[in-house]
């Protein structure tokens, strides 16, 4: 059943691939604006690179949050999903997995190319990818809570941003910290371990909070 839910969301995303590409292009454009606006000074670019890449990733993933539950809520399929004989926790996890694969993995894949604009070294680019791989699932997991809480509300998109962005702060700090540490040559490992710890925490608690929020929203 778990597989069916993810599979379903992947097919639906494929039918709406323009939306997915829009998120990706948003990420590309935002990260490209900074080198253009700030100028080609390599020192400055390397200093701002971690922050720019991570903030752009946060904003890009915000854009797609409404799609996790929004359409299903409107056409009544969300109710039917919640009435299937499986814990709501697993349904949420399956949907979050699909969201991560569709909206976040493309960002992780394109990130090293964008990193080149900032003159990052190969080693640093690798850490950019690793930190995003650890951090972006957290964005999906936490974002799902916000998406579930704001289901069916007017101005849901703005509310989601206000709810979720503060919760993204730890990921932002440890994600950029890891990249910064590679640039400066200090140890990267503790930052990545902290990101991993956040991922584990989010994995355990976020789907549970999301399913509670969903039950309130469909009532």
């Amino acid at each position, binding site marked *: 059943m778990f597989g069916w839910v993810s599979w379903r969301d992947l*097919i639906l995303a494929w*039918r709406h691939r323009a939306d997915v590409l829009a998120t990706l292009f948003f990420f590309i454009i935002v990260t490209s604006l900074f080198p253009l606006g700030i100028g080609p000074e390599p020192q400055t670019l390397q200093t701002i690179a971690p922050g720019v890449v991570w903030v752009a990733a946060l904003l890009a993933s915000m854009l797609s949050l409404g799609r996790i539950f929004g359409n299903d809520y409107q056409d009544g399929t969300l*109710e*039917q999903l919640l*009435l299937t004989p499986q814990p709501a926790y697993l349904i949420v996890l399956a949907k979050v997995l699909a969201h991560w694969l569709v909206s976040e993995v493309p960002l992780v894949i394109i990130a090293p190319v964008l990193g080149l604009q900032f003159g990052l070294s190969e080693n640093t680019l690798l850490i950019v990818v690793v930190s995003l791989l650890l951090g972006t699932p957290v964005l999906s997991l936490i974002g799902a809570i916000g998406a579930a809480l704001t289901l069916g509300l007017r101005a849901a998109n703005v509310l989601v941003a206000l709810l979720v962005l503060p919760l993204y702060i730890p990921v932002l700090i440890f994600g950029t910290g890891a990249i910064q540490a590679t640039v400066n040559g200090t140890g990267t490992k503790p930052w990545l371990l902290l990101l991993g710890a956040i991922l584990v925490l989010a994995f355990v608690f976020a789907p549970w909070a999301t399913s509670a929020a969903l039950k309130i929203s469909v009532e």
Partner: protein
Amino acid sequence: MLEVLKLGCIRGDRRLFSDLSFSATAGELIELRGPNGSGKTSLLRILCGLSSPAAGQVRWNGKNIRSLAEEYFRDVAYLAHQNAVKDELSALENLRIASGVAGNPLNKAQAQQVLERIGLKDRQHLPARVLSAGQRRRLALTRLLTSKATLWILDEVLTSLDDAAVRLSRDFISDHIKNGGMAIVATHQDLNLSVERMQRIQLFP
């Protein structure tokens, strides 16, 4: 066996119903009647566990459905006002995905058989977006045909169906009840089902 004990429901500041008690056993049909806004849909949503009642409780085989949770959902099929049909998917995909998600996966041949029964075989590859309202309702009905649930909770099941489809749905609701199932049907039309045991519950505004 379904037992409803002193159920009360409040929407906003309006009391829709209170102290509502009834029970249903295997092979029984419950017809739920009442004018618009009398709380039929609210009652059905409480019965299937989507909403919680303001007072009272619903018991399934002696246990509160709130504590049964997913175990109860195995025995319940709910057909809501909304069809829960995905516009982007074809009729065949809708059926196969919905039944897969619900835990009774169908292979392609089985799914086509179901679509043939409901009269959508020649439309199976069209996206649901281009189907008519009646055809979408028929597609929603396939969820009942494929489910193994004992208790069917149906909200205005005959809406936008043509005569043939109305006859078809009457047939399979009465088949379900003859085979030891239960159905609770909210309706404005007469169902005219040939079942042995039937209760009518009337809600007042």
